[in-house]
């Protein structure tokens, strides 16, 4: 039994390593001009949404707290990351109408003394900063709202996300947030390149994938820890959990804050992948989309959330493209296959999942369970 567990975690570890290696290799061979670059876009955006979905699943799936504030925390993360990575040379172009109040750029600051290692470290610090900022607001928002039950919690968190969006667009905060104008020219994925000797290494896709992978590993570890089990107990039966000595307020707050932290990190990733950050993009609709990815993968399954996000992104950005541009699966019907049809088909698929396959792709299982089940079946056959 124990031996088996160890084997499963070794296999998972090697698979993750192989996957990261593959992405690194793809980064070197597929250039933006390549036809296959769509794959890289999907990997980049997919990892943003995968982390967003996994962090939402921590709350909605594992702790049973139906929260719809994710877009707000992602916004905080995106802005924090963007503000702290705008190089001083670009600052005045970005803050066209304001006098920029925050004049620090971590990558720039550290690269002055440490070279390219400093840039890497600076990006890492900015990403962590983004998470911490989101977690801090998550904590503050959690204080009043976590006492609320199910749908009231949903609508209150949704409300807070809207408030955050308004605050970030407020002209009076322009020196920090650039008001309703967008932030740009900060450290984005297209700049993630290093010169090692004579070879130029590209990390444009590798960096977001790596951040998402590390973050998801941490979340998985948390979910499998004694705290994660307590979250599940709260989800299954709050009254019983409290009677067994689990402090509801404290554990809900931990789950909410951790989820906000990683939502902030995914917001930072979104900023670096899209090269812009604009508050008006982080609407409730974004939260709904992430929720639907979680549902697609199966509420309560981390691997499900990852699969759901990548499918969602791949389908809407790539596979179903034809539905928008006149030709799909060899059928030409420009009258029907025009702009927006892809999303219609897509939402119909999602409704079918919601209504008829309520457990999503994975149910509450994980990919690693599949190995175990096979083992069990074999044992039984013997």
């Amino acid at each position, binding site marked *: 039994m124990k031996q088996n567990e160890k084997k499963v975690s070794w296999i998972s570890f090697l698979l993750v390593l192989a996957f990261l290696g593959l992405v690194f290799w793809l980064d070197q061979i597929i250039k933006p001009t390549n036809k296959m670059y769509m794959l890289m876009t999907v990997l980049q955006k997919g990892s943003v949404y995968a982390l967003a979905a996994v962090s939402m699943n921590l709350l909605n799936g594992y702790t049973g707290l139906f929260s719809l504030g994710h877009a707000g925390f992602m916004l905080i993360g995106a802005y924090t990351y963007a503000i702290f990575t705008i190089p001083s040379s670009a600052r005045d172009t970005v803050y066209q109408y304001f006098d920029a109040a925050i004049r620090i750029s971590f990558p720039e600051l550290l690269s002055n003394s440490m070279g390219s290692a400093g840039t890497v470290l600076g990006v890492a610090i900015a990403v962590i900063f983004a998470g911490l900022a989101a977690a801090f607001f998550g904590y503050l928002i959690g204080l009043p709202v976590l006492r609320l039950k199910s749908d009231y919690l949903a609508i209150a968190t949704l409300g807070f996300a809207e408030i955050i969006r308004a605050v970030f667009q407020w002209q009076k905060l322009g020196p920090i947030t650039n008001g309703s104008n967008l932030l740009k020219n900060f450290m984005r994925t297209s700049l993630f390149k290093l010169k090692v000797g004579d070879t130029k290494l590209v990390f444009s896709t590798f960096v977001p994938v790596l951040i998402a992978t590390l973050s998801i590993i*941490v979340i998985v*570890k*948390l979910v499998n*820890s*004694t*705290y994660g*089990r*307590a979250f*599940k*107990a709260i*989800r*299954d*039966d709050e*009254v*019983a*959990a*409290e*009677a*067994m*000595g*689990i*402090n*509801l*307020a404290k554990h809900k707050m*931990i789950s909410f804050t*951790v989820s906000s932290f990683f939502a902030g990190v995914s917001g930072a990733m979104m900023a670096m992948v899209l090269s812009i950050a604009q508050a008006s993009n982080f609407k409730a609709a974004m939260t709904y989309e992430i929720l639907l990815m979680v549902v697609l993968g199966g509420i*309560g399954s981390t691997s499900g959330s990852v699969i759901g996000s990548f499918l969602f992104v791949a389908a809407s950005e790539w596979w179903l493209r034809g539905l928008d541009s006149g030709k799909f699966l060899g059928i030409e019907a420009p009258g029907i296959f025009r702009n927006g049809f892809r999303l219609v088909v897509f939402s119909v698929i999602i409704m079918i999942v919601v209504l008829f396959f309520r457990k999503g792709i994975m149910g*509450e299982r994980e990919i690693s369970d599949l190995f175990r089940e096979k083992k069990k079946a074999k044992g039984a056959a013997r």
Partner: protein
Amino acid sequence: MRKDKPCILRVEDVTMQFGGVVAVNNFSMEEYEGEIVAIIGPNGAGKTTAFNVITGVYAPTNGRVTFDGRKVIENFPRGKMKKGYLGENAGKYTDHLEPTPDKLTALGMARTFQNIRLWKSMTVFENVLIAKHMKRTSNLFSATFGGNRAEEKRQRDEADALIETVGLSDVRDEPATSLPYGKQRRLEIARALATDPKLLLLDEPAAGMNPQETVELTRFIGEIRDQFHVSILLIEHHMDLVMDISDRIYVLDFGSMIAHGTPVEIQANEKVIDAYLGVTDDA
């Protein structure tokens, strides 16, 4: 009576009023270490309400609960209740102590539920293991990053040992809710024991059980008391079980206590017989 032992639970003048309805009226009781005490009474007598007050689910309108020599719950008619209070001893208590149930569990009270509340997505083992969460010394970071391996292993071993003791080893990895009813009850008790309680509170442990299962449960409760050195407070309808294992019994009717004493005394008590209208076993 074991009055030579220290008092584990003392309930004083507890009144619970919902709006204009007094569900429990001026209820007092005590339990000494190692005792099995039962609260009985007809349906709607206020047993479960009293139970919920003691375990911290409801804050009493008035009264005090002392557990293990420590005042844990106290309240007096406040706010809207100040005017509308219908009970007695209104001026006697002045403190306001209203802990959440988990605080009481941390002090050493653990309970089961009338309508079994197991964590349904989890196995038997996990149900017991999670109850150990309260005893952790690890923080969020050490738990996440594996800094608590020794503790984790110890808790797993303890959970396994407990499952072994209560005789559920053969269903250790089954989903908790797939067990037959009697075993689910047993698991709920095991889960409560996993918190290392001093006082175990059982809310109608024999509800819905057949006579055979009830006999087994009676024996099981006795064993637990001796093996785990806990005191037990239970609410029950099954008179056989109550008369069999209780050291003392409190009888509630319409929210008020009408009698208390040993099983023999209670069986002979006129008021009790009247309250039950001659029905001594309404299982």
